[in-house]
């Protein structure tokens, strides 16, 4: 069992408020990812759950038990730190055993748990080495192993892959995902990398400035971002935002003018009072394509062309000077300075009002 509930959790360091009332219900066995730009409070939130910090107000429940005053060690959680935090003066085996010895577990049980974790993570060969003699990836495994042997109700992972090189990160990501499927234990994972969030999470919690912006499955966040921040944060390269205005509101949806050039009817309702209001029109770079000569579209000037082979990334500037990024499938013979016309489908547009909320 590993259900974790947060109610109105706030945290202040002196006069600085870091968390502004977090409400969250994490289901048992869920892989949940906290994602957000640095300084958004995601690590702070994790530390509140871990018990390494006490929330200023609000309640934390683990499996229905109020744990605000329960010390970290007794919450039944295990944590993997960004720097791995392996004890440098102990061998891998001692690192794994430390927590179990402190819990006064019988020796035989400790041995069997270490053996099991070593087998699962393939670290058996270097159980007697010190962390300093291991590579980054091996240290990462040991850090995860130290969490696994505790047999925790939930794993807390604080940017565990950020110290690895790109290749290793991808393989460790897959391993973590496999590990979660196998253990079926709740995992809370903190990252600033939205690709990690998208690939690992059952649900993603997007945080900004100590507040939850949106909670949802990766595709929910991608397809229906609740606001402009989430829309810009999830998806790579990030979404383009173009200025536009609402021309009319009808039964088929909302008719918007984009950059004053193209008018499209987006199948999405809006309040009648919003006609003529300025809005932001979001469109993902992958949804933009080159317009044919007689098709409607917006004109743009190419700044830079990056040909990646399977796709071509175009950095362009709209007639209003707003930057536009388009990812076109295949290869295109374009050069910088060239005038092009771009178009997109109405169904792929995301509309955000002036407050940044999704229409």
């Amino acid at each position, binding site marked *: 069992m590993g259900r974790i509930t947060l109610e109105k959790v706030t945290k202040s360091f002196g006069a600085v408020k870091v968390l502004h009332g977090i409400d969250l219900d994490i289901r048992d066995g869920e892989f949940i990812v906290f994602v957000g730009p640095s300084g958004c409070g995601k690590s702070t939130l994790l530390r509140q759950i*871990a018990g390494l910090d006490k929330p200023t107000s609000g309640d934390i429940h683990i499996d229905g038990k109020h744990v605000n005053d329960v010390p*970290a*060690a007794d919450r039944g959680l*295990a*944590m993997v730190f960004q720097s791995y*935090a*392996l*004890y*440098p003066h102990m061998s891998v085996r001692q690192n794994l055993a430390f*927590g179990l010895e402190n819990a006064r577990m019988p020796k035989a049980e400790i041995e069997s748990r270490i053996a099991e974790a070593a087998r699962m993570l393939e670290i058996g060969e270097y159980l007697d080495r010190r962390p300093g003699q291991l590579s980054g990836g091996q240290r990462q495994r040991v850090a995860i192993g130290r969490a696994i042997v505790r047999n925790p109700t939930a794993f807390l992972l604080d940017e565990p892959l950020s110290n690895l090189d790109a290749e290793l990160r991808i393989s460790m990501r897959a391993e973590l995902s496999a590990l979660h499927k196998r253990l079926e234990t709740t995992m809370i994972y903190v990252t600033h990398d939205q690709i990690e969030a998208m690939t690992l999470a059952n649900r993603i919690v997007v945080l900004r400035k100590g507040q939850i912006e949106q909670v949802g499955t990766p595709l929910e966040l991608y397809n229906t971002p609740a606001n402009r921040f989430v829309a810009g944060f999830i998806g790579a390269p990030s979404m383009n935002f173009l200025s536009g205005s609402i021309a009319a509101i009808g039964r088929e949806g909302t008719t918007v003018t984009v950059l004053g050039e193209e008018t499209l009817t987006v199948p999405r309702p809006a309040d009648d009072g919003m006609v003529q209001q300025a809005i932001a029109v979001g469109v993902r770079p992958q949804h933009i394509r080159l317009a044919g000569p007689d098709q409607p579209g917006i004109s743009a000037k190419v700044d830079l062309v990056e040909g990646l082979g399977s796709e071509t990334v175009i950095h362009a500037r709209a007639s209003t000077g707003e930057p536009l990024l388009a990812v076109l499938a295949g290869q295109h013979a374009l050069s910088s300075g060239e005038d092009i016309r771009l178009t997109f489908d109405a169904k792929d547009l995301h509309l955000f009002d002036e407050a940044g909320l999704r229409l």
Partner: protein
Amino acid sequence: MSTVWQFITRRRGGEGWHWTDIATWVWLIGGLIVMFGPAVWLTLSSFKSPAALSKFPPTILPYVTQEVRVEGFDKALPLYEVKLPDGTSVNLAEKRRIGVIAQMIDPKNPETVHKININDRKPVDMLEFATSNYTEPFLQFDFLRYLWNSVFVTVMATIITLAINSMAAFALSKYKFRGQNLILIIIVGTLMVPLGVIMVPLYSVVSALGLFNNLWGVILPTVATPTGVFLLRQYMLTIPDELIDAARMDKASEWQIYWRIVLPLAAPALAVLAIFSVVWRWNDFLWPLIVLSRSSLYTLQVGLNVYAGQLNVQWQYILAMTVVTMIPVILVFVFLQKFIARGIATSGLK
């Protein structure tokens, strides 16, 4: 020899002398003489006889006047190089001296007595190491008892110093509490209070506690050192907090975090402090002199003081025993200098 010379005269490149070559040379060689000279002088002088010690001008090496045995004389006679009136110079032994005139004889031909003005002769010196300076104190001076007292004081004081200073440093570096910096400043501020200022109050405290004439009276007042707290705190600040968080998640008590995580990781700084503490306590003189008045409790440094009487200072024994007491400290520096350098580098202390 030529390689040594080549090494000493090595220059910044080119044929000429750059001014930095000269500055470096003067600085390093001068430094060597200033730092090493007294130690060499001490060691060589510790082998001198009392007469050689009081000789003027002083010599570097321990010379004694050569003596010869001459038939018909019970004692060996000192040998002098004498310039005879005819201009030749011969080695003659002194038989007797009256005023400025010495009666001297040729050892091979003891019948003829030459009367020589003492200004016309020079003693024939020879190198002799007066090892009795070392052996005699071991026989008459209670060296082993003093050594034991010194070892006891040094070891106990160092152990207690390490224990309590590391605890203070752990609290000051790894816990957040109100007044943390103030406490640190107060602790470091006590560095500015010299022993002379607190000697009298400290003496009343120690004697009120009944520790007068007790080795613990020497040990306890010295164990809380601001230098040690500061040095260890600076080092412990470099231990990542995540390790301590990890230990907390691993159900470690605060004591276990201190004992099993922080102390082993602070080992290099502890080694430095241990070295410093050994040197300080071993070399302590004034405070043990005040507290200890029974000679069976003397430490080596205080024990040496018995050779400095009111009227007569037996320099030869003081010098020899000073050399002996220096040996442990030198060994500490020779074998542990790596740690000392690191400790100084990490804390900015000397």
